[in-house]
């Protein structure tokens, strides 16, 4: 990997830019992080990114901050985690400090409202693009269990609002049992 100084700077500027342009919280920023760190920089593998997302998801606190901490830690240990967390927190800190000074004017501004409304279509496209990539990968591996779990958990979350933590615990347990079962059957044969 590149020399340390460059990695820290790229880590900081990437998390800063992603956080500055991400409206709508964790589920929006994670696909963007995946695009940046997996597809563009090639610093993290896709499977690893999904593992880290699951951990960020099930930890307390803002998902965007958790994911940044995981990515920073993976790349450069505790200092990396610190750099990524600062990069993620600074944009909202700066923006909200400015806004809280004169928030009445901001709220009523028709240009800002129109801009945010236009961005909704763009952000929907970005996330759809990532979903096509990730879902396609699961499908193309042709593992029955993974595909069934993907469909079932989608139904559980989207239609029945099942708690995310419960879902993650159950899926982890099923995954562990599948491995234990596989090892046992391999021993027998």
């Amino acid at each position, binding site marked *: 990997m590149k020399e340390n100084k460059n990695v820290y700077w790229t880590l900081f500027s990437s998390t800063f*830019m992603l956080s500055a*342009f991400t409206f709508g*919280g*964790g*589920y*929006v920023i*994670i696909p963007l992080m995946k695009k940046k760190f997996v597809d563009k920089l090639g610093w993290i593998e896709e*499977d690893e990114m*999904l593992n880290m997302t699951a*951990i960020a*998801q099930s*930890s*307390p*606190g*803002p*998902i*965007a*901050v958790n994911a940044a*901490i995981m990515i920073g*830690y993976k790349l450069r240990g505790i200092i990396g*985690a610190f750099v990524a*967390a600062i990069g993620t*927190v600074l944009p*909202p*800190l700066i923006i*909200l400090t400015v806004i*809280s000074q004169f*928030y009445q004017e901001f*709220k009523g501004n028709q*240009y800002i409202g129109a*801009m*945010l*409304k*236009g*961005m*909704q*279509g*763009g*952000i*929907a*496209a*970005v*996330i*759809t*693009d990532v*979903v096509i990539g*990730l*879902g396609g990968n*699961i499908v193309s591996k042709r593992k029955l269990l993974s*595909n069934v*779990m993907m469909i079932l*958990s989608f139904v559980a979350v*989207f239609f029945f609002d099942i708690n995310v*933590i419960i*879902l*993650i615990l159950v*899926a*982890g347990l099923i995954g*562990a049992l*599948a491995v234990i079962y596989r090892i046992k059957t391999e021993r027998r044969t």
Partner: protein
Amino acid sequence: MVYLELFFSFFKIGLFSIGGGYAAMPLIQEQIVVIQNWLTMKEFTDLITIAEMTPGPIAINSATFVGNQVAGFTGSIVATLGCVVPSFIIVLILARIYFRYKDLSVIQGVLEGLRPVVVALISSAAISILSLAFWGEEGFSLNLSDLNVLAVILFAISLFVLRKWKPSPILIMLGTGLIGMIVYNIS
């Protein structure tokens, strides 16, 4: 001391909000409206509106805003720190465990089980965002007049550009934001 109160109120919010975004909202309301009386309910609603219109996690936005209203710039820093410290400690512990044991076959199995769930979670969020963009707050409707045609066009063009040329998502957002600003203001 107000700084300590700010720190610990947001420490609790950071520690107990699991699932991000809207899951944190009731906790924030309890701490800053009910327990500490830092904001009225009306101001809290304004805060949520602002948080939705600006980038960044709702919890961080709230911490900065409330900290600033209660104790100026230092207040916003203290509150934001309080909100992030629990994440930092817990995620670092989990990260250490993950990177040390991830090669064990059982952990591999657990992680393999988690991947499709994460993809499903992101898909579900994608559909909610798509629905908000196409039909607004009321959600899906079969009535064609409820459909925001500009949003559908922006979505289709953006998706095509993304799949074909793979530009930075930030460019897509700036572009659609600019078009939105022009077109919605003309019509």
